[in-house]
C-alpha cells in the first residue's frame, strides 16, 4: 500500500479557529512512519501550532529534503502545496520559492542527515541569508530509511543499535545556526509537546530565519541504552532554559505576568512574544550568551532546550534585496519589460 485515504467526515462540533478552520483541516495523509516515531509528534505539533495561529492552510508552502523526516509534510497541512525536493537541498528550493512569493509561510522540514551531512552547506547559507522560514530539523542522530547508520549529529561515544560506538564528533546545528546569524534559534523535544507547540508558534510569527532543532527519537534504530537520542536519555538530560508563554498576534497583552519572570518582546510585525525565563539570569536576546549556555550545558552532559535565542526585530532576505511588496510571481510585462523604446536606446548605445 502506498497511499492511505483518511476519512473526510468531521465531527460537527469541532472548534473552529478565527479563520474558520477546525484542527482536522490542518491534517494530512495518514503517516507511514513507524508507530511511536517522534516525527509524528512533531507533525501533530505543527498542526496544533498552525491551527492556534489561525494560519490558512493553503497559505503555507511546506518543503523538505529526503529521509524519514522529509516524508512528513505529506502527513500535515493537506491543503498546502508541498515539495519533497532532493537530499539536503531543501533550503535552496525554499529560498527560491520564498523569493517568488513573499506572502506565504515557508515551512522547511528536514532531518539530521539531510541538514547536517549532505545539506550542511545549504543549511548554513539559508541561515546566513535570513530567509524568512520555519526550519525544523527532526533530529534523531540516525539514518532511518537506510536502516540505522549514524548521522552527523550522533554524539561521539554513543552506541548504535548494532553496538557500534560512534568515533566522530557531532555537528551541532544549534551552534551553527547561532554563529551564522539565524534570528530565532530553539531546541525542542518531540516528547514534550507543551514546550514544542509554542516554539513552533514563535517561529511562525518570526520575521526572519527561524530554526528549531527537535530531538526526535527513532524508535526503530535509536531508542536503546547507550543512545543519546533515546526517549529515556533525552528526558533525563533535558534542561529547558526559556519557555514561550504565548505569541500575541493582536499585539495587545491579555494578562499581566509577574514582573521579572516574563519578558515581553515586541516583534517587527507589531505582535508581541512573551518569554518566560526558566534559567536564572538567562537572556534569550543575547546571541553570545546563548552560544555560551548551549556549550556550557553540553559540557555538563545536558541538552539545552527551549527558545535559546531570538532577535525580535529581525528582518529577512527580501528586506536585504529591497524587493517590492507585491509577490514577484504576480508581476507582469508592465512592471518587468522595459519596452521597445528603451531597447532602441540600448541599441543606440551599442554602436
Amino acid at each position: 500500500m502506498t497511499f492511505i485515504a483518511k476519512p473526510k467526515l468531521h465531527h460537527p462540533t469541532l472548534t473552529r479557529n478565527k479563520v474558520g478552520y477546525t484542527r482536522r483541516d490542518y491534517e494530512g495523509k495518514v503517516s507511514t512512519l513507524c508507530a511511536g516515531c517522534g516525527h509524528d509528534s512533531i507533525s501533530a505539533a505543527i498542526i496544533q501550532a498552525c491551527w492556534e495561529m489561525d494560519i490558512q492552510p493553503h497559505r503555507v508552502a511546506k518543503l523538505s529534503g529526503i529521509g524519514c523526516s522529509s516524508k512528513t509534510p505529506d502527513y500535515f497541512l493537506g491543503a498546502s502545496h508541498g515539495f519533497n525536493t532532493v537530499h539536503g537541498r531543501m533550503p535552496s528550493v525554499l529560498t527560491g520559492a520564498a523569493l517568488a512569493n513573499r506572502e506565504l509561510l515557508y515551512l522547511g522540514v528536514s532531518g539530521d542527515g539531510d541538514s547536517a551531512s549532505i545539506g550542511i552547506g545549504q543549511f548554513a547559507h539559508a541561515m546566513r541569508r535570513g530567509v524568512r522560514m520555519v526550519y525544523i530539523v527532526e533530529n534523531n542522530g540516525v539514518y532511518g530509511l537506510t536502516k540505522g547508520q549514524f548521522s552527523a549529529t550522533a554524539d561521539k561515544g554513543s552506541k548504535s543499535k548494532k553496538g557500534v560506538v560512534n568515533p566522530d564528533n557531532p555537528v551541532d546545528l544549534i551552534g551553527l545556526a547561532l554563529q551564522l546569524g539565524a534570528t530565532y534559534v530553539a531546541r525542542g523535544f518531540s516528547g514534550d509537546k507543551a514546550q514544542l507547540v509554542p516554539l513552533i508558534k514563535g517561529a511562525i510569527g518570526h520575521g526572519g530565519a527561524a530554526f528549531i532543532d527537535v530531538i526526535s527519537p527513532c524508535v526503530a534504530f535509536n531508542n536503546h541504552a547507550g543512545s543519546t537520542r533515546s526517549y529515556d536519555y533525552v528526558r533525563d538530560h533535558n534542561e529547558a532554559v526559556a519557555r514561550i508563554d504565548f505569541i500575541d498576534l493582536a499585539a495587545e497583552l491579555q494578562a499581566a505576568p509577574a514582573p521579572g519572570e516574563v519578558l515581553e518582546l515586541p516583534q517587527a510585525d507589531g505582535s508581541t512574544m512573551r518569554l518566560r525565563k526558566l534559567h536564572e539570569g538567562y537572556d534569550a536576546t543575547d546571541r553570545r550568551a546563548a552560544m555560551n549556555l548551549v556549550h556550557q550545558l553540553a559540557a555538563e552532559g545536558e541538552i539545552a532546550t527551549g527558545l535559546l535565542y531570538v532577535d525580535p526585530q529581525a528582518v529577512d532576505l527580501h528586506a536585504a534585496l529591497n524587493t517590492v511588496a507585491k509577490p514577484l510571481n504576480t508581476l507582469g510585462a508592465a512592471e518587468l519589460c522595459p519596452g521597445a523604446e528603451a531597447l532602441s536606446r540600448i541599441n543606440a548605445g551599442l554602436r
Partner: protein
Amino acid sequence: MSGNRIESVNDFVVKFANVNGSGSASANELFAKAILRMGVPVSPRNIFPSNIQGLPTWYEVRVSEAGWLGRRGGIDMMVAMNPQTWDADVREVEPGGYLFYDSTKPLPPGALRSDITVIGMPVTAICNATYEDPRQRTLFKNIMVLGALSVLMDIDPTVIEKLFGEQYKGKERLLESNVRALHAGRGFAKDHLQPPHHAGIGLKVRRADAVGDKIFVEGNAAAALGCVYGGATVCAWYPITPSSSVAEAFASYCKKYRHDGATGQANYAIVQAEDEIASIGMVTGAGWNGARAFTATSGPGVSLMTEFIGLAYFAEIPVTIIDVQRGGPSTGMPTRTQQGDLISSAYASHGDTKHVMLLPQDPAECFEFSAAALDLADRLQTPVFVMTDLDIGMNQRLCKPFEWDEARAYDRGKVMSAEELEAGKDFGRYKDVDGDGIPWRTLPGTHPSKGSYFTRGTTRNAYAIYSEAGPDYLYNVQRLLKKFATAATLAPQPEVRAAAKKTRLGVIYFGSTAPAMDEALTALAAEGIHLDALRLKAFPFPNSVAEFIANHDHVFVVEQNRDAQMRTLLVNELEIDPAWLIKVLHFDGTPITARFITEAITKHVHALAVAPRRERIVS
C-alpha cells in the same frame, strides 16, 4: 624587407599581444570600435588566461569590409607588447606581414624575421619621458600605440577622439590626457614611421558603409538583457568563467530598468548562491512557485546541477539555464571556447531524461533565445538550456539590433487559476488533458481547498499521488516523451539555405560556428563545392532536420568538440545511419575558422569523389 608585403584595404587581421591587467583591454577595444565607426565591420576576440594580472593576453581583431565575422586564422600584423610571448608572437605573423614592437630596448637581430616588416617605436621611453606617475606610464602606452596605429592604417583620429568623449563624459581631465597621449603617438609615427623615414605598412582602413544599423555587443550582456525583457524576476548564480558576466549584466540592467518608480524597490531578486547546486535549487523553487527564474553557468556548473535538472524534468518545473560553454572536460580550458556540453546538457541527470536546448549564433540571438527560453520553460514546464559559448559570450560581436515586439505577451503556460478551480475544473497535476503532453499546474497559495498537490521526485499518478505502480509510471514517462515532441514544434526552427546550384551535399551547423560557416560556404562555392546548409537553432530536432538529411547523400556536421556531440544527438534522436553524417570537428579551444571548415570539407569532398558512398541499408 621588400617586395612581398601584404597590401590590403579593409581586410586584414591585427593581433595585440599584451600582459593582462596592464590596461590594454580598453585601448584595444577603442581600436576595434574606431574602425567600426568608419563603417568597416570588425570582429575582435579576447584570448585570455585564467588570471588577474601578469600573464599573457591577446586581442585579435579581424577587419572585414565583406562582413566576415568568424575568426580568419593567420595574423597580418602583430602588435607585440609582451616580451614573455615574443618568440611565438613573431612566429605567428604571416610572411609579408608586419610586426610592431616597443623598441625602447634594442632586440638581438636574431629575434626578428627577415620576411616581415618591422616597425619599432620606443613607447616606454616616450611614456617615461612624458609622465611621472608609473600608472600613467603604463596606461598611456596603450593609447600612444593606438595613435601610432591610427597613422599607419589611416584611421581617422577624430573618430577616436569622439570615442574618448563618450567614454570620459564628465571626466574632462581624463579626456584631455587621453587625447594628448593619442596625438603624442600620432606625432611620433608621422615623424618616424612613414616615408621617407620608414616604408610604413600596407594595411589600410578606408571609410565604408558596411556596418549599417548593426550593434556591437557581448553575448553575455545580450542574454542578460533577454532575461530582463523576457520577464525573469529571480536570478540565482555562482561565479564561473565564462558566464559570470551574464548575472552581472542582468544586475546592472535591472538596476536601470527594474526599480519601481514610486518606491525605488526592486522588481527582481538576484542571489549569488553558495554553489551551482544551490543556484539551480533556488531557480527550481522560484519556478515551482510561479516566478520566471534563471541561472547562468558553464559546463562544470551543469555537472553539479544535474540532480536538480532531473528533478525539474520529472516534477515538471520551469527552469532556464544559460550555459556559456568553455573547454572541458573537468576544469579543462576555462578561458577557451568549445561546444562541449551538448550531450551533458541534453541528457543531464540519471534515468531517462531529455532537455530542450536553444542554440544562439550571436548576441542578437542570445537576447532573443533567452527571452524565448523563459516562455518555453513556462509553456513546457521543464528545464530549457540556452547553449551559448565563450566565443559569443565574452567577445563583442557585430549583429543585428535587438528587437522587441510591444504586442508580445509572456506565455506563462498552463497555470490553473483560483476561478477555474472554483468552477470545478478537473485538476490532475500530471494529467494530459490537451493531448500535447503538457499538464496543468497550480501555484502554491491559489485556492483554500482545491488544487493543492505534493511535488516530488518520486513517481506518482496523474493526480500527483505517490505511486510506484507500473502503469502510472509508464503514463508519466511516455507523456514526457510526447511533451518533448511538442517542444520540437515550439522551439526555434532550423534555418535552411539552398546552395546556388543543385547539390547532393549538405552541411549542418549551429551556434558560434555560424559566421565561419557563412564564409566557408562562400569560399567552397567559389571552388565549385556547393552545399545546402541547415543551421540548427534548437534541440529536440523537428522533422525538417530528418528531411534535410534524407534529401542529401552526404551531410557534414560541423561542431566545436572532439566527440561530434551534435552528430551523436542526430544519430541517436533521428536514428540516422552514422555513415551519412560526416564529422567536421574543431576543438583546440580557439574559435573555428572558415579556413578550417573549407579545408576539411574540400578534403572530404575530394575523397568522396574517388570512393563511392557506402550504401545505406534499407530495412
